[in-house]
């Protein structure tokens, strides 16, 4: 049906996944382009700039390999978010094994990065470090709102909480972030 043709961009994730399983590799390209901004942004908030693309590509590579076993119990986006969190955790475990600091030293990061001023990069590293040190529920609500640009009502739907609870969690998360930035 759609095999060997570029799939339309308004098709559902489920249809594209089935299409990919049927052998149309271009279906994955559409999934990739559709979900890349959210995945990339989420990684960008927690991983040093010079490793963001590499980690993002690993996430999609793992997704591609595991798509055959994706049962569709959760939405593809939710599944991909969980995979992203696992890959980020794996990235930090690998760094820890190599005995590298949790986030690259400032000088190393600045030397390897172009396009950002050292001051803005320094600020980003401080924020990444603070985000990484937050409890998971706080980090998650901040990433959903800032990195994935989800509205508060969407976060409420996604987490199964009411809107007031999400806004309260968000305020407490920002407050905790501020405390981490000050220490």
């Amino acid at each position, binding site marked *: 049906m759609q095999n060997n043709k570029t799939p339309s961009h308004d098709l559902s994730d489920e249809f594209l996944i089935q299409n990919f399983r049927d052998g149309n590799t271009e279906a994955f*390209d559409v999934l990739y*382009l559709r979900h890349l901004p959210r995945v990339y942004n989420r990684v960008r908030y927690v991983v040093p700039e010079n490793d963001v693309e590499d980690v993002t590509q690993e996430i999609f590579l793992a997704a591609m390999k595991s798509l055959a076993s994706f049962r569709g119990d959760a939405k593809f986006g939710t599944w991909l978010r969980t995979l992203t969190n696992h890959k980020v955790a794996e990235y930090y475990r690998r760094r820890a094994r190599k005995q590298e600091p949790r986030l690259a030293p400032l000088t190393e990061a600045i030397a390897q990065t172009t396009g950002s001023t050292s001051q803005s990069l320094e600020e980003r590293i401080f924020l990444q470090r603070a985000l990484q040190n937050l409890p998971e529920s706080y980090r998650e609500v901040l990433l959903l709102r800032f990195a994935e640009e989800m509205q508060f009502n969407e976060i409420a739907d996604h987490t199964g909480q009411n809107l007031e609870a999400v806004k309260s969690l968000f305020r407490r998360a920002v407050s905790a*972030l501020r405390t981490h*930035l000050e220490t």
Partner: protein
Amino acid sequence: MDQETQYTEKDSKLADFTDRLLGGKTAPIASASDEELLHLEQTVLRLTHAFPPDSQRDAKAKQMLVRFKNRVSREETQAVKPSFWKRLFDFHANPQAGLLLAVVTVLILAVVALPFIQPPGSSVSGSAITSGNFYIAAGMILVLLVVYWISHNK
């Protein structure tokens, strides 16, 4: 106003401030009278300034897709590349290896059998050859067969 109501109000004000900021609208910062809210809004501002939206998102996404596809095909090529042993013992693709194995086997058999072969009329017996040599040669052949079997079952 009780503390719970105060917090609920703060939750809403901070959420509205964030919505306006991320929506690209002007977000007036809280007055200094509410110091806590002011600090929270400043933290939100700090976060949004440190991670500004990517203006070249679409172009970058397409470039990343190209690099992703290259990486996939690179990994697929590496995945299908057979191991050294499999290639060595792939006699269809590498008939010389098969010939070499056959020659080595014949040589080993010849070394083992040589002491037992006596020219007609010879009175010298092959007593210098012990049964140990036979076991060594048989072991070598066995090792070759095991290596062959393992490489084909990898």
